[in-house]
């Protein structure tokens, strides 16, 4: 394996030196929109789009400046300021990996900003929506651009906050508020892993900067430490990327507005886990080590789980969410294979960012025309009424099922081929997953755009305005060509090599391999089965009861039930026990003491009879006793 090149300190100015502007623009946008809130209502959305576009321009310029440098110069560390004196210097790392992410985030992000102008046009809180979107873009860029784990973590929490705010954007809906809370809580579990991983890094290696960590790990570290750090980072990645066992929040997160689902819960934030694993490659070395294997297994398990869930969902957004889980599972699987899989994982991440955002926005466009109906059983035959949405959705659909020569075909095939080569069992599971993908995505397309109309009475489907369809068109163009461009001549692998290393054997693209053909055959079978069930046959307007397996998938593989019985119930018992102890134990002592004093004083005050002669008698007795005592003492 060729190891990554050294990180060099950036000295000259140029766009790379000013790359902090990428983070600053959207942050400024969010600041202005939040501070001057209703004064910016009229033009707030335009400012949001402008800030996101400005970030994109900086990213493109930095990208070209990086391309202009020699390969051994392509990891530029830009020092910004001393963050925690003697501990952490805040800086940015501009290298092929981070700039790829920056381009994806700002590019797809800007398109989704533009789309949101149309989608949120009738929402009175559109300005607030754009401020959160800008906040998200800023935090996500900090996450991928920071040159140390502290900066990464701040960005990591920032995107978590933005995700929370945006899932709960319509917080007047109890379901949205609950979903936001759930996402936040589940993510805390992952953050705990990331934090503890950082603690171990700090105590073991004394630094949290990527470049220094790389050197320190290179000098030698015990396998146990590396495994511990690797597994903890994986836990963090699982939380953010909705991988098993922390997958439960993603489906509920679809309560947020659709552009949020497209940007945060499909294209960018949920892929942060993949970024974390690839960026922390030093801890997942050598390939085949326990922690790397764990990443691959988590990926394979999630890609199947997500696909199975996707098969049974009637809510178009939840179906897409299951598919997102599944596709990130593919990326994780690729990332668990070491440098051989990194390029394909990142490649799939980028193409997925395009075709999944395309489909989510397409679903949003359908909802926009159908009075926000999300139940696919109430769609049907929409292709004639929304031609542009239909065509772009079909492009995304063909890309995700891996239709030959579209984006998803190249990147997913790369992951499957590499997986079959390195981890045959997981690789063949991925092939199976691709077949299921063919089924559930076809089901979605047939239920939505083909077949009979099953609309609600008051539905008047219409094509969305240009401000919404234009991003769809651009995204679908990316969904067609990007994969081939990145993978065919190893463009992405060579570009990423300085950052993540390259495998010893350069993969060559062969169209006709056993796993590749098996994948295509399974996808065809899946699509054909979907056509039989949902295209040709009539789709029942009411959800049929379904078999055991269907119920299993509808209930998200009982993920919530498991969480509930394993964590929520014992937690409730614990709190009940604490409440019981507090009420009976602590309160008992305090109340008992007070009651005792109150009761005895109640009895004591009966001595105050109000009869002066009684008092006189007690005075006399007291005086007699006192005198007696004095006499007694005197005689001794």
């Amino acid at each position, binding site marked *: 394996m060729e190891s990554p090149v050294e990180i060099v300190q950036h000295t000259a100015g140029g766009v790379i030196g000013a790359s902090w502007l990428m983070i600053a623009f959207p942050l400024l946008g969010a600041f202005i929109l939040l501070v001057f809130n209703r004064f910016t209502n009229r033009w707030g959305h335009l400012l949001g789009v402008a800030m996101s576009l400005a970030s994109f321009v900086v990213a493109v310029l930095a990208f070209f400046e990086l391309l202009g440098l020699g390969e051994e110069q392509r990891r530029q560390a830009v020092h910004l300021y001393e963050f925690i004196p003697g501990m952490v210097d805040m800086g940015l790392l501009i290298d092929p990996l981070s700039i790829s992410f920056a381009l994806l985030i700002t590019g797809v992000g800007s398109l989704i900003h533009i789309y949101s102008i149309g989608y949120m046009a009738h929402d009175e809180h559109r300005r607030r929506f754009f401020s959160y979107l800008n906040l998200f873009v800023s935090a996500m860029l900090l996450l991928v651009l920071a040159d140390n784990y502290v900066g990464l973590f701040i960005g990591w929490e920032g995107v978590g906050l933005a995700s929370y705010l945006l899932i709960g954007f319509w917080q007047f809906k109890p379901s949205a508020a609950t979903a936001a809370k759930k996402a936040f809580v589940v993510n805390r579990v992952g953050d705990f892993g990331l934090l503890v991983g950082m603690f171990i890094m700090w105590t073991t290696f004394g630094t949290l900067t990527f470049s220094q960590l790389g050197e320190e790990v290179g000098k030698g570290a015990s396998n146990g430490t590396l495994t511990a750090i690797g597994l903890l980072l994986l836990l963090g990645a699982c939380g953010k990327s909705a991988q098993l066992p922390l997958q439960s929040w993603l489906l509920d997160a679809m309560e947020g507005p659709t552009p949020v689902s497209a940007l945060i819960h499909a294209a960018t934030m949920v892929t942060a886990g993949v970024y974390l694993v690839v960026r922390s490659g030093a801890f997942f070395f050598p390939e085949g080590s326990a922690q790397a294997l764990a990443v691959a297994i988590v990926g394979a398990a999630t890609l199947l789980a997500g696909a199975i869930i996707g098969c049974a969902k009637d809510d178009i957004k939840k179906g897409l969410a299951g598919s997102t889980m599944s596709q990130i599972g593919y990326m994780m699987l690729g990332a668990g294979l070491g440098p051989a899989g990194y390029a394909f994982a990142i490649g799939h991440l980028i193409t997925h960012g395009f075709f999944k955002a395309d489909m989510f926005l397409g679903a949003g466009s359908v909802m926009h025309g159908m009075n926000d109906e999300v139940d696919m059983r109430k769609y049907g035959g929409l292709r004639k009424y929304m031609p542009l949405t239909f065509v772009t959705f079909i492009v995304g659909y063909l890309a995700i099922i891996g239709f030959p020569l579209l984006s998803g075909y190249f990147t997913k095939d790369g992951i499957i081929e590499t997986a079959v080569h390195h981890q045959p069992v997981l690789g063949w599971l991925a092939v199976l997953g691709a077949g299921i993908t063919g089924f559930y995505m076809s089901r979605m397309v047939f239920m939505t755009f083909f077949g009979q109309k099953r609309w609600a009475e008051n539905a008047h489907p219409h094509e969305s305005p240009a401000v919404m369809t234009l991003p769809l068109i651009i995204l679908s163009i990316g969904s067609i060509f990007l994969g081939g461009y990145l993978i065919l001549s190893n463009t992405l692998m060579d570009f990423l090599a300085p950052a993540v290393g390259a495998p010893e054997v350069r993969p060559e693209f062969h169209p006709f391999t056993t796993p590749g053909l098996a994948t295509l055959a399974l996808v065809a079978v899946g699509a054909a089965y979907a056509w039989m069930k949902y295209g040709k046959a009539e789709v029942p307007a009411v959800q049929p009861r379904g078999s055991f397996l269907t119920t299993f998938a509808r209930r998200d593989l009982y993920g919530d039930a498991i969480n509930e019985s394993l964590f929520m119930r014992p937690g409730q018992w614990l709190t009940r026990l604490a409440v019981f102890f507090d009420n009976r134990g602590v309160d008992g002592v305090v109340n008992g003491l007070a009651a005792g004093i109150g009761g005895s004083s109640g009895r004591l005050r009966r001595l105050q009879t*109000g009869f002066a002669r009684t008092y006189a008698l007690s005075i006399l007795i007291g005086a007699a006793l006192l005198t007696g005592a004095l006499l007694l003492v005197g005689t001794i």
Partner: protein
Amino acid sequence: MTTHYLILSGLLFAIGALGVLVRRNAIVVFMCVELMLNACNLAFVTFARQVGNLEGQIIAFFVMVVAAAEVVVGLAIIVTIFRTRRSASVDDANLLKY
């Protein structure tokens, strides 16, 4: 030599105390209190004479002064209570209680 005086003083004090405890009429109770005070005075004077100095005599004067003041205040209270409640019984004035 002074034993008889002290016995008289003790008797007077006991009579006074008994009067305070058993009589209900506030005026009588009051007079019994005076009787107790004067029993004390007698004891003071007796001891002063026995020891041979003046301190006991002086204390007796103090007690008289205090008793006089007390009579002024006490009688005023008794008269006021009698005016409002038509009763001079100490047992009737029993509102100030638990």
